[in-house]
Structure formats: structure tokens, C-alpha cells
């Protein structure tokens, strides 16, 4: 009971109070300090970014007190989280958490803990960072609640099977793995039935752990909210079809937090409505994310979290902006497939069709569509040492995209979290040469 009070109090009282305090501090600072000169390269910052911080602070702050108050699940980013919402689970996304460590440049230190423990440096950086964080008890989130269950879905990679089994062994909690067969062609009914049966079984297990009954009406409502959230996210992304684009692909990576971690919750939808309205307003007034937009690019693969700022600046200085990314688009692409009347089967449909679970031909067509829709002049394909399924085949993809979409493409070596694998000087040199090849500098 006390734990529940702490959990609710953190979410409903402390986090909003903290957010109000931070807002007041920000206002006070801007009142005291002379007004900053507007950036030479970037447009005004998005107001929604402050709101994003508040939303995520609330999520992580309440998480500190979640175990013992409500059932807790740790899940992979591509897991059909809708199944858990009616039971009131607090959900932790180790991948989001690892990304947060990456942005704060803490990824390597935590990964090293996992390496000393015995994981290979070639294992996904998110897995090493997350396991290292748990082993050392060190996290920028303050504290992560211990899970009652671990839930993984293989639609993003096979690493999650081993990663979550390792976590299950350390934490001594059950793990449920949803297997989504790789789609080399079009999805078929057998695949959907196979995945749907697993989801049904998983939902029953989660109900037992939470001590609640399955409520299919509530599940339908959650599916409806997820559908809306994905549509809202899609609307936010589509606004970058405007020239100049009102926000960059790198900003999209940061604003992915709620659609990944809070899908199915009303506050997720409220957040994206606010963001969409602000972006619409920027488009209406011709406000661009960068001041002198000359060339528009597509980004493939996860971001290089710890270099977002330096890469943004390098691009903006010479008028380049990332307008779309395959990764952020992945969260909007399957929105029409959510069906609140048949939440389990439609979840099977949505989650088996995640683009990373599909053939290179499918991915090429998706990239060509994005290049055309967003009027891209070129594409950067981040060859991500950590993420094998996303990176294998990128050499062919880059070549075919260049030929078939008549654009310039660049393969950029890096890693989404491990700074030791990223040769900054070489990568920046390569990017600069790529931009020079567009001419006009």
C-alpha cells in the first residue's frame, strides 16, 4: 500500500512539481541572463522538447517506486505492449534506457562492466549497456524497478532472445519470447496465426502475474489509442515534407521516446498532439529546423546517439538537413493495421511486419518511397556495428538506392552507443567529403 502511494505520488505529485520547478527555473534564468543570440545555423528550438523532458521525467521517476506497487515488465522496443496496458503494468524499455545512457555519453562505461562480466565487445551495445547498468546499479534514471516478467519479441533482432534470457538468469524472473518469423516476401495468414497464438498465451501469463482477469474491451481501447498515437506520430513526421523542414530527423530520434515507451497511454497521444500542432505552426510560418536548407537527406539505421549534436552542426553549417529516417518512420508505417475490434490478431499483423523483420527489397522500396515523399537529395546509411540486422545488406541498399532513386548515398561507419567503435575524425571527414560532392560549396 505504501509502495503504491509512493508510486502514484511520484507520478502525480512529485514529477509535475519537479516539472513546474524546472519551468520556473528556466524562466528565471532567461529573465536574468541577457537574451541569447539566435543560432547562426539552427532555427528556434522546439517548445515540445521541454515538454518531452517532463513526460519522460515523470515516467522514469515513477518507475523508481513501481516494483512492489504495480506489476513491472521489461520489454523490447518491438513488443506488442498493448497486451499489458489493461493490467496496469509499469513498463521499462531497456533499449530506451540504453539510448538515454548513449545521449549522456555513459554507454561505454556501462558496456565495459558487461564486458568484464563476460560479454563480447561485438554484442549489441544496448544489451551490454543495459546488462552493465543492472550489474553496477548505475543508471542515469536513478533506479530501474525490478521486473516481474521479461518480454521479448524477435521482430527487431535475434539478439533479444539471448539478451533477455541472460537477464532472466540474472534477475531470476520468467521470460516470454514472441517469435515473429522473418518475412522474406509478403506476410501470410499462417505467420499471423502463429504470432497471434503466442500473443494470446503471453497475455494470459501477464494476467496471471498481475493477478487480474483479461479484459478484451479494455484491450480494444488500448489498441485504438496505439493506432491514434502511431497516426499522430506519422502526421508529425509528414510535416517534414515541407520545405524548409520544421524539424530534423535527429530531433525525431529524441522525440521517439513516448511512442516507444508510452504507446497505449493517453499521455502519449496528448504529447504528440501538442508536438504536431507546434510543427504545423512552424510550417505555416515557414520556420525551418535549420536556417539555410539547401539539401535534404534520409538517414538509415539507429542514430549515433553520442554524436547527434556534432553531426547536426556539421550538416547545418553547409545547409544539409536530415528530413526523414527509416527508424522513426517504422513507428508510423504500420499504424493503419491496428484494429481495435480484433486487437490480438491485428497486433500480430502490425508487429510481424516491422520493416527490420522484412526483406532488403521491401526496405529498398520503403527507402525509395521516403526519398520521393520527402524530396531527398541524398541518403546517409549508418553502418551500425551494434545492430547487425539493420546493417547487413546496406552496401547493396546504398548502391541500389543511388541508382534507382538517382540520389547520392553515403555509408557511415559507427555505433549507436559504443564510442570506441566510432572513428570520429574519419567519419566526419567522410561526411564532409560527401557533402562537398553535392557541389555549390
Amino acid at each position, binding site marked *: 500500500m505504501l509502495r503504491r502511494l509512493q508510486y502514484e505520488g511520484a507520478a502525480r505529485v512529485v514529477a509535475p512539481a519537479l516539472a513546474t520547478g524546472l519551468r520556473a527555473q528556466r524562466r528565471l534564468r532567461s529573465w536574468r541572463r541577457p537574451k541569447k543570440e539566435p543560432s547562426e545555423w539552427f532555427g528556434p528550438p522546439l517548445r515540445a522538447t521541454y515538454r518531452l523532458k517532463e513526460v519522460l521525467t515523470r515516467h522514469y521517476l515513477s518507475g523508481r517506486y513501481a516494483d512492489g506497487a504495480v506489476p513491472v515488465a521489461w520489454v523490447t522496443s518491438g513488443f506488442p505492449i498493448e497486451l499489458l496496458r489493461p493490467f496496469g503494468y509499469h513498463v521499462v524499455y531497456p533499449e530506451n534506457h540504453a539510448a538515454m545512457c548513449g545521449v549522456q555519453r555513459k554507454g561505454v562505461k556501462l558496456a565495459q562492466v558487461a564486458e568484464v562480466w563476460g560479454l563480447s565487445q561485438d554484442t549489441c551495445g544496448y544489451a551490454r549497456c543495459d546488462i552493465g547498468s543492472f550489474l553496477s546499479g548505475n543508471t542515469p534514471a536513478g533506479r530501474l524497478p525490478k521486473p516481474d516478467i521479461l518480454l521479448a519479441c524477435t521482430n527487431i533482432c535475434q539478439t533479444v532472445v539471448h539478451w533477455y534470457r541472460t537477464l532472466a538468469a540474472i534477475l531470476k524472473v520468467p521470460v516470454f519470447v514472441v517469435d515473429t518469423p522473418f518475412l522474406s516476401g509478403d506476410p501470410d495468414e499462417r505467420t499471423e496465426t502463429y504470432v497471434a497464438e503466442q500473443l494470446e498465451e503471453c497475455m494470459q501469463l501477464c494476467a496471471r502475474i498481475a493477478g487480474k482477469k483479461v479484459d478484451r474491451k479494455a484491450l480494444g481501447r488500448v489498441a485504438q489509442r496505439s493506432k491514434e498515437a502511431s497516426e499522430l506520430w506519422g502526421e508529425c513526421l509528414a510535416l517534414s515534407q515541407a520545405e524548409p523542414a520544421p524539424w530534423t530527423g535527429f530531433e525525431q530520434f529524441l522525440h521517439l521516446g513516448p511512442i516507444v515507451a508510452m504507446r497505449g497511454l493517453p499521455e502519449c497521444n496528448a504529447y504528440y498532439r501538442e508536438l504536431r500542432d507546434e510543427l504545423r505552426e512552424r510550417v505555416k510560418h515557414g520556420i525551418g529546423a535549420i536556417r539555410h536548407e539547401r539539401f535534404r537527406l534520409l538517414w538509415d539505421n539507429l542514430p549515433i546517439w553520442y554524436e547527434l549534436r556534432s553531426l547536426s552542426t556539421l550538416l547545418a553549417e553547409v545547409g544539409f538537413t536530415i528530413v526523414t529516417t527509416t527508424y522513426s518512420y517504422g513507428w508510423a508505417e504500420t499504424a493503419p493495421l491496428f484494429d481495435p475490434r480484433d486487437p490480438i490478431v491485428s497486433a500480430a499483423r502490425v508487429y510481424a511486419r516491422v520493416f527490420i523483420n522484412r526483406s532488403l527489397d521491401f526496405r529498398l522500396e520503403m527507402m525509395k518511397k521516403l526519398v520521393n515523399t520527402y524530396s531527398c537529395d541524398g541518403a546517409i546509411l549508418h553502418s551500425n556495428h551494434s545492430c547487425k540486422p539493420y546493417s547487413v545488406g546496406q552496401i547493396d541498399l546504398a*548502391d541500389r538506392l543511388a541508382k534507382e532513386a538517382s540520389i547520392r548515398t553515403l555509408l557511415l*561507419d559507427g555505433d549507436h552507443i559504443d564510442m570506441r567503435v566510432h572513428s570520429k575524425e*574519419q567519419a566526419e*571527414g567522410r561526411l564532409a*567529403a560527401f557533402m562537398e*560532392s553535392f*557541389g555549390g560549396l
Partner: protein
Amino acid sequence: MTIRIGIDVGSTTTKAVAVDDSGRVLARSIEPGDPRIAQQAQRMLEALLERVGGGGEASIVATGYGRKLVAMAGKKRTEISCHALGAFHVMNRPGVLIDVGGQDTKVIRLNSDGSVADFVMNDKCAAGTGRFLEVILARLGVSWDELADRYASADPPVQISSTCTVFAESEVISMLANGQPVDSVVKGLHIALSDRIVSMAGRLLMGVETVLLSGGVASNSAMVAALSSKVGKPVAVVPEPQFVGALGAALLG
């Protein structure tokens, strides 16, 4: 006459070239890279200006890793753009340029107007570069001038499988300890280096008629022979191969 100067601050050497309005080379200079990049660049540029009599007036463009530290440069451009321009100016034909520098190897496909169609560079280590050769030759006690003869006389070459320069050095030591002749190791080294370069350049080399070579390593005829054999066609060395980047930078001025 307007004097244009290009300076290429590379990882191993710093090169400068002065050209006139028509792109004719007036003077060149080269020095081993100094860690005090800014001072070295300034000194070399001032000396070059004095030699060509520019009276301090010249348009200067910097390239190479240290380009950002060249205060006298009005423009800074990457090695890719400069090498492409420099090689095309001299050879005047499209094709693929392989530049093997001290710590990086660049492969650039040139369009028929000399612009960059595509390029690749070595990944996260310096395995396929001049430094690889330098490190191992130092261990073998073989000088640069002996390479051509040693390469020609070796039969058969040894196979060096390590991709990493440091491990290849240990591999070479154990080969020598096992009685392998130095000449066979030298030939094996050139073949290993060519293998690495061609596997990186592979997709850009497809369907290309002309393959050009520049960078410090191009002055080694053993390397030209090994690379030609691997590519399957003669590789043409760009005249004054070490200065191609600096020349391209000068032409951008």
C-alpha cells in the same frame, strides 16, 4: 598573375603546391608532418610564397586531416574533393583513383567531368595504408628503394593473413623465425596490401577502364605491380603522386 596555393596536411607528411592561373605548377614542397601543425603550415606557406614571388598575395586552400589548423587558408576542403580534382587535372580522363596515404586509403570514382561520382575510405583501422607497409618494412630492415628488386626476385610469396597491422608484424616475425626469405615476405606484404585495397575498392572498380594510383605509396613500383596484378589491368601512377591532394586544393583557389 594570380598565385594559388594548395596545402595538404596529411597524417604522415605535409605537402604544398603553388600553381598559376592556368593551373601550371610553379613550386612544390614537402615535409614530414610536425605535431605543431599550425606553425609548420604557416612556415611552409610563407616559404613557398617567397619562392614563387607572390608578395604575400595568394589564394590558399587547405586539405588533409590538419586542414582546420591552417589559419592562412581561405577555404578548407576534404581530401576527396581535392584528390579528385588534382588527378583529373593531370590525367584528364574519368576512372577510379586509388590514393594510398599514410593512414587512410581513398578510392574515388571520377565522372567524365572530373567530379566525384562515389568514394570509399578505409574503415576503422589503418590496415590497408602506407603505415602498414612502413611498420613492417622497419621490422624487416628493408628500405623503400630496395622494394622493387626484392619484389621481382621473390618466388613464391608468403601469405600474410592478419588484417591488423600489429598482428601482421608478429606474423612476419614468426615467418622470419621459421626461415622464410625476406624477399618472399616483402612480396607477400605487397600482395596482402593490394588485397585489402581491392576488396575495399571492389564495387567502385566494376566496369571501369582507367585505374589511377596516387599517394606516397605510388612511388613504390612493387606496389604498382602488385595492385595491377590484383585489379587485372595496368594501374597508372599519377605524376608526382604525393602532391595530388595539394594540387587539387591549389586548383580550387
